[in-house]
């Protein structure tokens, strides 16, 4: 297979024989793959293929049973999620996981957590350094809200937003952690056609800022339109990789999808 020949030298994320077992069930059967830096990488596959499990492994919510995950050459398998977030990987969730009673603004402000430092004493006693930091957090959060187009909804409780905007808010919250790799887990799930188009534009704009984007997505139009590379997994195995055009005509991929019905 012509493995990522057109890509820049070092992959930002490298998977080496990543395996994930839950009791007797094997969700990932040794996935090896490298995501080139700076691209939009799609991960597709039929339901239950292990795509979300893969994202959980990369973001640290699951610890792979075996295999290695390297982020910018550094092994991250088994690190706690907050450490991985500090290193520069952020994510959204398939089932929206916003802090619903907090405002839209506060959700994005929380995203600044790994880039700020004041603790209990500094905040409780309102040290000047903490006040400066809070002002900066507010400014930066506003920047990300502007970036995704949710500035007008800043003061609403996150739970009051319609689903489409909640998905966008999750992206803003993830971006606020200043990731160099952002994982989007079915960002178009539940969005209508116009919203999906806007999402595509947003993902392109994220990519233009230099952030590598990896997305799990079922909406094939979106995947084909925006991604540079596609990784197909099936029953926890690496089935195929290539550009969207290559994947579209790949016999194994067609069979996997048609075979599923």
């Amino acid at each position, binding site marked *: 297979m012509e493995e990522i020949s057109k890509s820049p030298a070092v992959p930002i994320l490298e998977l080496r024989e990543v395996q994930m077992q839950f009791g007797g069930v094997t969700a990932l059967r040794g996935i090896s793959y490298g995501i080139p830096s700076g691209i939009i990488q799609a991960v597709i596959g039929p339901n239950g293929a292990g795509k979300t499990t893969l994202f959980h492994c990369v*973001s*640290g*919510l699951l610890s792979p049973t075996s295999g290695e995950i390297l982020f910018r050459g550094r092994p991250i398998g088994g690190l*706690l*999620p*907050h450490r991985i*977030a*500090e290193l520069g990987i*952020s*994510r959204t*969730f398939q089932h929206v*996981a*916003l*802090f*619903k*009673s*907090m*405002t839209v*603004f*506060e959700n994005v*402000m*929380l*995203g*600044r*957590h*790994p*880039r*700020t430092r*004041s*603790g*209990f004493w500094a*905040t*409780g*006693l*309102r040290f000047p350094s*903490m006040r400066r*930091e*809070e002002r900066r*957090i507010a400014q930066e959060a506003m920047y990300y809200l502007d970036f995704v187009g949710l500035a007008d909804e800043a*003061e*609403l*409780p996150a739970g*009051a937003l319609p689903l489409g905007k909640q998905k966008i808010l999750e992206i803003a*919250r*993830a971006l606020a*952690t200043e990731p160099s790799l952002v994982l989007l887990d079915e960002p178009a799930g539940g969005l209508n056609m116009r919203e999906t188009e806007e999402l595509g534009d947003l993902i392109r704009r994220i990519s233009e800022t230099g952030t590598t984007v990896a997305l799990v997505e079922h909406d094939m139009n979106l995947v084909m339109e925006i991604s540079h590379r596609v990784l197909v997994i099936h029953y926890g195995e690496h089935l195929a990789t290539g550009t969207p055009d290559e994947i579209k005509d790949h016999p194994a991929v067609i069979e996997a999808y048609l075979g599923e019905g």
Partner: protein
Amino acid sequence: MTPRDWRIFVITALFIGFFPWVVQPVKAISHYVDVMVFAGIFTIVCLGISLLMGYAGQISMAQAAFFGIGAYTSGILTARFGLNPWAAMPAGALLAALVAWVVGIPALRLKGHYLAMATLGFGVIVHIVLSEEVAWTGGPSGMVDIPGLQVVGLKLKSELGWYYLVWTVVFLVLLFCFHILHSRVGRALRAIHEEESAAEAMGVPTARYKVQVFVLSAVLASLAGSFYTHYVTCLNPSSFNLMWSIRFILMVMVGGMQSLWGALLGTVLMTFVGNEWLHVFADFEVLVYGAILLLVALFLPKGLVSLVPRRAAARSI
């Protein structure tokens, strides 16, 4: 703090400031000042519970035990070793912090209500120790002759002096808690409560924060315990059993879990209810508490503060 919180703060401070002037001249209710000293001491405990349970969503059944650790550390160090009460106070707080840390680390690393289980057991152990270590604590009959407090060389004799001292501390603790809530730490605590995995994935070290807020709540409870000791000058282990832990939680629930004002309001109200009006039920007091708990949980899950109308749609703390 929001402008609204500042307004409530000023109004509350004025109310507390003038309260003794109104009640003291009236014979029938002049002892309300004394009740309010207890209410203030309990409020310090309950503000910690509000942070820990209301905001961070972690249940502790051992706040009375930490209250007891503070009380007995102060009592023993001052009555038996002649230490200055103001020096004994931080010693108690330090001990409570250490103990909370040790109990909290294993319990809080796990998701779910492990802290509730661990603290339930821990609270019982502390109560047994207080009752059985007769040589140190005086056992079931407790301790007497604990010295009072001196403020800038003057012995704090009157209830009024105690009242103003305790409530000053309450307001300082209140400010401290408000400032924590309106910061990255407060947002992290609320995020842990709502979506722990998401908080962790966004870079919040959830285990560390849960332990820290638990330690803070223990320190506040211990501090309150120290004031309690020097106010009543005698101790008895029954003030620090599981029932008291539940009472503290009930106070916060009545006022409103997710509001520091709720903690204050609920504590003052329930202290009056407990001290003044529930005696008629004698042994059935526990039943009345149970009934209150049930009614609040069913009909007023967000406590009394939820009855106050709010202007804006958004709820930003």
